[in-house]
């Protein structure tokens, strides 16, 4: 049971890494995510059913998501509309596209075929079934994390981070900000779709509604992660995002598992997620207000001390 939470959380954490790139690093409120997650699931499912090998299916899913992200960035760049609107447009269009990919149906099962999650117990045959799934997912998630870390330590990744912090600086450094946005959103949605492709194989079906509410869930996970520790190093930021994703999934699991005692149904979880995000925002705000008040107090005390010293020095002179 606990292994299940971790597998779920780790698959989810790849999606949250994608949300991290768009929301936190690129500072682009991207809602494409809700569509591209299901696109990844649909593409991976159909590819596997058509007999494409497993890594090929995941690559197709990732590329599909990357195209969706690039479309959002292009709408934003060319039509000069806010990122939010560009994302909503792509997300809405993707709903139809996803049903097309699924052959006109909203839901396709992935039963009696080889998937990543039927392969893991074969590869790690020395482990029990649930542990094999966990180890396999952990390996994939770690590889993705390390690749993301390396990317954001490379010159291109750093310039994408700089764009999110200050667009004028990127322009001043002779870089086309539009191109960086396309690359950033393609990467973000590629990861999101990859996560969708994995989830479809784990739960054994692809659904056109799979991505609903993903953005908010991703933000909740990012915010939980930000409570864990503070850092500006990318390897620690991605680590805390993954931990946040697992904690979020655990919270939701226990909400489902024990929630019936207080008459909670699975359909209440979206409300809970929203409240979780709001509470996180409130806590973060109180914290930063408290720390700046603290800094002000310290500065005042320091000033007082300096004045005291000067006074003493003057007194001594006289």
């Amino acid at each position, binding site marked *: 049971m606990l292994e299940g939470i971790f597998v779920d959380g780790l698959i989810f954490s790849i999606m949250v890494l994608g949300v991290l790139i768009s929301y936190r690093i690129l500072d682009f409120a991207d809602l494409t995510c809700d569509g591209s997650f299901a696109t990844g699931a649909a593409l991976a499912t159909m590819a596997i059913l058509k007999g494409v090998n497993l890594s090929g299916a995941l690559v197709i899913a990732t590329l599909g998501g990357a195209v969706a992200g690039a479309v959002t960035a292009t709408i934003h760049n060319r039509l000069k509309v806010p990122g939010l609107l560009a994302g909503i447009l792509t997300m809405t269009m993707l709903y139809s596209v996803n049903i097309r990919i699924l052959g006109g149906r909203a839901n396709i099962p992935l039963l009696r075929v080889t998937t990543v999650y039927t392969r893991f117990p074969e590869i790690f045959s020395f482990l029990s079934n649930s542990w094999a799934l966990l180890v396999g997912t952990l390996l994939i998630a770690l590889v993705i994390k390390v690749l993301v870390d390396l990317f954001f330590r490379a010159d291109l990744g750093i310039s994408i981070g700089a764009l999110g912090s*200050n667009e*004028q600086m990127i*322009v*001043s450094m*002779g870089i086309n900000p539009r191109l960086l946005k396309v690359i950033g959103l393609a990467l973000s949605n590629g990861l999101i779709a990859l996560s969708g492709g994995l989830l479809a194989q784990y739960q054994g079906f692809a659904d056109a509604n799979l991505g609903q509410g993903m953005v908010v869930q991703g933000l909740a996970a990012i915010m939980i992660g930000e409570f864990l520790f503070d850092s500006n190093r990318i390897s620690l930021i991605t680590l805390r995002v993954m931990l946040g994703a697992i904690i979020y999934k655990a919270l939701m699991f226990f909400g489902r598992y024990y929630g019936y005692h207080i008459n909670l149904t699975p359909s209440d979880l979206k409300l809970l997620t929203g409240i979780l995000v709001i509470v996180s925002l409130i806590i973060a705000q109180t914290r930063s207000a408290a720390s700046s008040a603290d800094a002000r107090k310290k500065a005042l005390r320091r000033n007082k001390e300096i004045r005291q010293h000067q006074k003493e020095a003057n007194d001594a002179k006289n």
Partner: protein
Amino acid sequence: MLKIEALSKVFYPNTVNEKRAIEYIDLNVNEGDFITVVGSNGSGKSTLFNLIAGTYPVTGGKIILNGKDVTHTPEYKRAFTIGRIFQDPNVGTAAKMSLEDNMITAHRKGMKGLKISLNSEKRQLFKEELKQLSMGLEERLKDNVGLLSGGQRQALTLLMTILSRPQMLLLDEHTAALDPSNAQIVMDLTTQFIERYNLTTLMVTHNMQHAIDFGNRLIMMDEGKIILDLNASEKESLTVPKLVKMFKTIKKKEYASDEGLLIL
């Protein structure tokens, strides 16, 4: 180096809010020139800079940079030649990134690749560069730039602009938001770098004394036109009261001729 021909810029054309910000300006900037630009608010100094840098599209005229017509070249491409520093210290640096990340972005102009260039050798180089600022920033490579003071940020912006090796500097009141001592430090560094790398420079300033003390040429703008263009020898004997007087006489002449037109 930079040649501007009959440049004009009209905001909100053909509406009641129509504003002629730049009216047919001709300007020839020679290589190595250090021009100070003065003029009252709304005289078009910043608009002129925005047109040269490519932030705004022009309404008419031509901008020729190094013999190439760049009138319709996007801002980020012109940035290879032009380094620009704004009044607001926050515009030149990325607050949410560390000093070293900021500096590696500035280290080479243009699109970046997947190489990880930030190594110990580069860090050493950045430390050496930061030492020139004598602000103790060489010890803070891993700190986020958002933690620095305005003066430190502007000095860092200047250093980063220099690191990216432009041929030309556009300084848009880049010391105006700083306290006097920091403004002095940044201004000293600016003149040092301009001399060392022989940078062609245009500097907007509201400080008349600065306008007279620095550079080899002074231009004064008013209502979208260049109304005064003094060379080095004319500048030598200049004082603030003289400059103000010149401004007033030119303005009066204009008013007189305008009135003349009305009577006719």
